[in-house]
C-alpha cells in the first residue's frame, strides 16, 4: 500500500509527531497537577452554572477532573489535526498539482481515497496513543482514587470516534469543494458551531433540542469516564462517519482534477 505508506510516513509524519507530543505532554501535565487542583478547589465556592457548563457539579474527583480538563479541549485540537490532515491528503495534493501524476497511474480513485483516509485515521489513532502514553508516564506519581489505569489509558481513545467523524467530514468536503481552504474553513466552522451549540443547549432554557444536532452531544466527551459508553451515541457517530466517507468517495470519483471547480456546481448547472 504505497499510497498509505507515503501519506502516513511522509506527508502526515510531522503533524502526527507534533500533535502526539503536544497532546501527550498536555495530558501528563494536567494529571500531574491534579493533587494541587484538588486541594485548592476544595476550598473554592464556584457558582452552580459553572459546574453546569462544565457538565458536572463535583469536579474534584479524578474522573471528573480529568474528563473536564482533558476532554473539553483536546478533542478540539484533535479535530484541528484531522481537518489539516484530511484536507491536505486530498485537496492539498490536488492544489499543489502533485495528485495529477498519481491519478494518471493504474490505481483506482477508490484506492487513492481509501488509502489516504486510512492514513489520516491511523495518524489519529497514533495521536490518541501518544496521549495515553503521556498519562501512563505520570500515573505512578499521582494518586488517582477510583480511577484504574485501564480506564485512564482508554480515555483518550474516547475522542477517537468524534475525531474520525470530522476527518470524514473534511475528506468529504475536500472532494466536494473547489479548494482546500474552502474545505478546511467549512469543516472548522461546523466543528466550532457544533461545540458552541452543545454549550448553549446545556446552559440556556428552551434550546434543549439543539443538542441532538451536534456531534459533540453524541461524543459524550464529558461523560465517558463518569457515565460509561453510551453505545447508540457512538453508533450515531460511526454511522455518520461512514455516510460522510461514502459521500466523499463518490465525490472524489466524480471529481475533475485540477480545474478548481466543485462537482456541485456542475450538478446544479445540469439541474437548472
Amino acid at each position: 500500500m504505497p499510497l498509505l505508506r507515503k501519506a502516513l510516513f511522509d506527508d502526515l509524519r510531522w503533524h502526527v509527531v507534533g500533535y502526539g507530543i503536544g497532546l501527550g505532554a498536555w495530558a501528563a501535565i494536567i494529571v500531574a497537577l491534579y493533587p494541587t487542583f484538588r486541594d485548592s478547589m476544595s476550598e473554592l465556592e464556584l457558582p452552580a452554572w459553572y459546574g453546569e457548563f462544565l457538565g458536572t457539579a463535583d469536579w474534584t474527583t479524578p474522573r471528573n477532573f480529568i474528563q473536564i480538563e482533558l476532554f473539553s479541549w483536546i478533542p478540539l485540537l484533535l479535530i484541528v489535526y484531522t481537518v489539516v490532515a484530511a484536507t491536505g491528503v486530498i485537496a492539498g495534493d490536488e492544489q499543489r498539482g502533485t495528485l495529477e501524476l498519481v491519478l494518471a497511474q493504474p490505481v483506482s480513485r477508490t484506492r487513492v481515497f481509501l488509502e489516504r483516509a486510512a492514513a489520516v485515521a491511523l495518524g489519529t489513532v497514533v495521536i490518541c496513543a501518544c496521549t495515553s502514553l503521556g498519562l501512563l508516564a505520570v500515573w505512578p506519581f499521582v494518586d488517582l482514587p477510583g480511577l484504574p489505569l485501564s480506564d485512564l489509558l482508554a480515555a483518550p481513545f474516547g475522542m477517537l470516534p468524534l475525531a474520525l467523524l470530522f476527518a470524514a467530514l473534511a475528506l468529504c468536503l475536500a472532494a466536494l469543494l473547489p479548494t482546500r481552504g474552502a474545505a478546511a474553513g467549512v469543516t472548522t466552522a461546523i466543528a466550532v458551531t457544533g461545540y458552541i451549540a452543545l454549550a448553549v443547549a446545556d446552559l440556556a432554557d428552551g434550546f434543549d433540542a439543539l443538542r441532538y444536532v451536534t456531534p459533540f452531544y453524541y461524543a459524550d466527551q464529558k461523560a465517558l469516564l463518569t457515565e460509561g459508553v453510551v453505545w447508540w451515541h457512538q453508533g450515531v457517530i460511526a454511522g455518520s462517519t461512514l455516510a460522510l466517507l461514502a459521500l466523499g468517495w463518490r465525490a472524489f470519483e466524480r471529481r475533475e482534477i485540477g480545474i478548481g471547480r466543485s462537482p456541485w456546481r456542475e450538478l446544479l448547472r445540469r439541474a437548472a
Partner: protein
Amino acid sequence: MPNAAIELEALTKRYGSVLALDDVELRVEPGELFGFLGPNGAGKTTAIRILVDLIRPTAGHARVLGLDAQRDARAVRARVGYLPGDLRLYEHLTGHELLELIASLRGGTVDARYRDDLIARLQLDPSRAIGELSRGNRQKVGIVQALMSRPALVLLDEPTSGLDPLMQEEVEALLRETVRDGGTVFFSSHVLSEVEQICTRVAMLNRGAILDVFDLAEQRRLAPRTVAVTFAEPPPADAFAGLAGVTVLAHDGRRVEFAARDGIDALVKRLAAFTVTTLDTHEPSLEELFLARYQQDATTAAPGGAPPEGAHAASA
C-alpha cells in the same frame, strides 16, 4: 481494422460557458508519432487529460487502445505513460524516490535497465531532491517516469518545454526509438519546428476544434514549392503563361518566382528554353502551412462572431 491508439468521437468539453473542446474527431493509429499542435489555450491539454480520466468529457467519447477512457480508465492508464503539461512533483522526494513511487503504483511493470538507461541519457542525477532541481531537470524526471514502463501509448504534454536544445534532441531521439520499438507517441507542442522534425502526422487544434490533420509527407508533396529562377536575359512577360499548376508570384527583370504545385515538370521543361543562371526551390515549412491555414481560419471565423475571450484564457 485494428484498434486505434487514440480515437476521439465528437469529443466536447465545456467549462461553464467556455467551450474547451468542440466536437473533436481524431484517430491516431498504433505506431504513429503524432503531433498535437496548437496555440496556448487551444484545448490540447484538455484532450490529453480526458484520455487519462483526470477530467471527463461533456459529450462524446474518447477511446484509447480500444478501451473507453472513462469506463476502463484503470486499464487505459496501465497501458499509458503520461507526462503532464504542468508537471508538479513531490519536491522533498529525490528523483529516485519519485520514480520508485510511480513504479510501485504501476505494479512492477517498470523495466529497471531501461529506466537507468533513460536516466543516463538525459543526464539526470536521481539522488537529488526534486525541490533542488532546475525546471529542465524536473522535466527529465517527468519524461523518465512516462517512458520507463515501456507503455503501449506515450502521452506527452509539451515534453520538451524547459529543456535545453541538446536535451530536446535527446528526447526527440527517445520518442523516435519508442515508436521504432513498437510504441505509439502522442505529444502536444506549440513548437512547429519540433513537430515538423519528428512527427509522421500532425493535428492542428485551435479554439477547441481540429483545423486539419496533416500527413507531413503528403502535405509537402501537395503544397506549393517556391521556385526562384534568375535568367541570363530578362524573359518575356508572357513566357510562363498558361502553365498548368504553376503561378508566377513575382517577375522582376531577370528574376522570376513561381509557386509550383503539381506543375513542376512542365515548368522545368519551359525553363529549358532559356539560359538559367541560378535556381532555388524551397519546400514550405510546417510553419508556413500552419500560418496559412490558421490565418484562413481566422478570416472565415471572424464574421460569424469570435468566440468569447475566455476560450483563449481557458487553459487547456
